């Protein structure tokens, strides 16, 4: 894959815990600064531990990039709710979102680093899942 100078892939972090999500986002920022669109969401609609489909949709919107968005999740409900949120997107956006099967902190940092280099979504996803640059 050739690197491009187009907008980098956005990164969304979805944790059951707002603290974990925010902390992971801090670690991403330390690595890539503001060069990659980044948003995090955590907690259920009442603010307790859990995930919130509306919050995930808002985070996807906040981190939106023409190159698409890679989502990093922690435990089961974060993945299921992220899949549900993706299905609620309009079709043009839906095809440009990938949920990564990777540990949330390590996956987010390496995905963002790959995205900052201009890699397309499928490479960002694969790099996160393999936890090493391709």
């Amino acid at each position, binding site marked *: 894959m050739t690197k491009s100078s187009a907008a980098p892939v956005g990164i969304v972090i979805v944790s059951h815990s707002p603290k974990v999500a925010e902390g992971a986002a801090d670690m991403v920022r330390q690595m890539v600064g503001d060069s990659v669109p980044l948003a995090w969401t955590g*907690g*259920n*609609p*009442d603010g*307790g*531990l*859990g*995930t*919130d*489909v*509306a919050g995930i949709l808002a985070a996807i919107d906040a981190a939106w990039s023409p190159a698409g968005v890679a989502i990093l999740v922690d*435990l*089961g*409900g974060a993945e*299921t*709710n992220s*899949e*549900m949120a993706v299905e*609620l997107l309009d079709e043009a956006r839906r095809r440009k979102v990938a949920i990564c099967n990777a540990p949330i902190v390590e996956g987010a940092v390496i995905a963002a680093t790959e995205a900052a280099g201009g890699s397309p979504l499928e490479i960002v996803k694969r790099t996160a899942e393999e936890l090493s640059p391709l």
Partner: protein
Amino acid sequence: MDAARQKQLIAGVANAIVSHAGELTALDQAIGDGDHGVNMKRGFEAVLADADRLAAKPLPEMLKGLGMHLVMKVGGASGPLFGTLFIALAKEIPADPTLGEVAHALGQAIEAVKARGKSAVGQKTMLDVLDPVLAELAGADRLDLAARLKARAAAAARATVPMKAIRGRASYLGDRSIGHMDPGGRSVWLIVDAVCDTLASPAQERS
């Protein structure tokens, strides 16, 4: 079904979950993260708050609206899973369905839940109650159907006790998930009971 009847159905199902939230949470504390009751309660309270508007819609739109509340408010995997059950049911069910059409729609909805949860029957999940209930509903015997559906749901939920969880948070416990009822299965049992009790009762008694 008219709007009054549909409202009875919504209220019956929602109140059944809300009033058993403590029990559902206790079941989930034994083998999960302990949020199933409070999450389902949050979702069904949103349904109750919108019950008049939902009940005034044709049955498919009512079910879809109910499902969307669960998706948006539950805050755990149960939201998309139970939400998908109702939303997929809405896609297939006519406004005034026959029993056969209900069974067909439930079959499709169960397939949608399997896909959403990447799960199958036998993994100690809500599917282990939904699937036997569908078998009962699709059977040829219509005599005392409500009572038989309730009995089947109860037996199926109890049958999750000796199962080992393969999906969901309970699967992290491995063999320690054995010996407890699946909270999602218990929720399905509660919903089936509430639907059967509402539909089996004369409409005027509850209005």
